[in-house]
């Protein structure tokens, strides 16, 4: 059902960034897992790392270009995900009410959230820090493993593995909840908008403080 009152949650620049993120990070995660477990033949492993490198370059350019073109959005996103309040602790105490909703079909009181709920904020922090780590360590491991100090490269390798595992595991949760919250999923992949009613329920502080009604034509 399509609500008449829609709110723009994901502008086009964010959606393009996200499309590119999807088509780069998903292959990176899959090929990364293959590279970690090494199950295939030599030529397949080589093909795997080539895909990994290409996807890594795409991810890097995606991140760099979004940072340059959508600098204000990046700053806004960071200020949102790095802001912590008492509500975040309360949200985590009930895990946003999702386990109760999914497993017990029960609704529990959830503290009011802004544009991003506490789980999304944590994911945002992880994506930002983990993404920066993955990009820089990945570049070093690809191009300079032989002419950086070996201890440094070993450390970069461990950081790359840890960040990749963290983001890949987080990605599984992100995809599941993204599809579960289908209106948000459609907003991110299609038109950028979510129904006003849903926004009011899921992100009341955002609606209350930041949303301005547009005059009707």
């Amino acid at each position, binding site marked *: 059902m399509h609500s008449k009152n829609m709110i723009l949650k994901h502008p086009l620049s964010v959606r393009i960034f996200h499309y590119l993120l999807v088509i780069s990070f998903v292959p990176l995660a899959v090929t990364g897992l293959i590279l970690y477990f*090494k199950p295939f033949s030599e030529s397949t*492993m*080589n093909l795997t790392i080539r895909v990994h490198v290409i996807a890594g370059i795409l991810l890097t350019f995606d991140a760099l270009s979004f940072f340059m073109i959508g600098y204000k959005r990046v700053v806004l996103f960071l200020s949102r995900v790095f802001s912590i309040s008492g509500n975040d602790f309360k949200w985590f105490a009930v895990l946003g009410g999702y386990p109760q909703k999914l497993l017990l079909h029960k609704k529990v009181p959830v503290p009011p959230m802004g544009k991003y709920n506490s789980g999304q904020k944590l994911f945002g922090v992880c994506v930002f820090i983990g993404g920066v780590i993955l990009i820089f360590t990945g570049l070093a491991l*690809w191009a*300079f493993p*032989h*002419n*950086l100090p070996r201890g*440094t490269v070993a450390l970069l390798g461990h950081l790359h593995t840890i960040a990749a595992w963290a983001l890949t595991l987080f990605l599984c949760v992100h995809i599941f909840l993204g599809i579960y919250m289908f209106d948000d999923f459609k907003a991110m992949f299609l038109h950028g908008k979510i129904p006003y009613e849903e926004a009011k329920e899921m992100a009341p502080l955002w609606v209350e403080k930041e949303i301005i009604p547009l005059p009707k034509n």
Partner: protein
Amino acid sequence: MNVIAKTYQKGEIPGVIAINASVCKGCDACKRHCPTGAITGMFGATHSIDVDLCLSCGQCLVNCPFGAPYETSDAVDTVISKLNDANVTVVGIIAPAVRVAIGEEFGMPAGSLVTGKLYGAMKKAGIEIFDNNFTADLTIMEEGSEFISRARHAVFGEKGENGEPIGPLPQFTSCCPAWVRFVETQYPSLIPHLSSAKSPQQMAGAVAKTYGAKVWGKPAEQIYTIGIMPCTAKKFEASRPEFKSAFEYQTHINKAKSETYADVDVVLTTRDLARLFKKMKIDLAKEQDYTPEILFAEYSGAGTIFGNTGGVMEAAVRTAYAVITGNELTDVEFKPVRGLKGVKSASVTLKDSKYDKEVTINLAVVHGIARNLKPVIDQVLAGTSPYHFIEVMNCPAGCINGGGQPIQKNGSSWIEAIRPWFAWK
């Protein structure tokens, strides 16, 4: 391990280095350090080593960020069992580069010179001391004399004393086992250019089991020689079947009867020796300095500098100067061959006192053969080399940065300043 290795003689260790497949990330870092392209496996796939191409230099081992390469030959427990055998005299042949590196394994600052402590720890372990600097001096006398003979043959047509054939110029040094194997497997036509002198390690083994047998009052077969080296390729060198001079001497000259034995029984790297000390609860850092009262611990400054790039050449120049001119050098330092430049060259003009003529000797020093050797070799092959004597050490900076040294977290790749490499295949 490749069981159909084609470039080894019977008895030789077919490749001292292997790669642990479960640790290898396929990052290709090792390939940039391998002098022969012996590391196989595409980028992203687990790598392995082609033992026929491998020189056993261990540069992949000391530079791999993830510690995937390892040594296939480990004699630490064998040495300990020999030390526990009252019938055996264990002799440790200590290379010059070991004493400035082993301290790191015991928490001492990098570069600490611990000769006295090392002697003390060896004494405590029950190892007789044979300083390889002693035979480095022998080597340079042999190698220097051989060069003079080749040079006089080339310039003045001088014949060998006993009519023996005299090798061509340029003469290459022969104390680096990785370099010798490189010539044998990659450029066999250059074998006559290699000095015929054995390496200090092999001279030490032969001396220990001949003259040393009298010093220690033991038959040669009860003397167990261990090369203590900064180098993994020395393990390969010691296993070469031709290195049984002491056995041949004892059986043919002294008519002794025994089973064949090698001049050097086993080789421990600097890392191996540190492990041996730790197993025997010896803390080298806490050892008192000890000075052995034995001829085999006497040596000159020429022997001492052998482990550095240019060290053999500098020592050779000192010897050649004394022999050719008939005078001792007043300033023994020969600085043009020092430093970390990939190829260093110098010219020395000397007056040959025997022929009363001036001769100019062109010298070159090459280290890090993976990057620096090819242009020098190509000139020699083309017959256009300006050099008469060329020192080659496989490892960047020389033995001091050998594959058997303590593994530095800072690595050593900066020595060669290898360019970035965007791995793909």
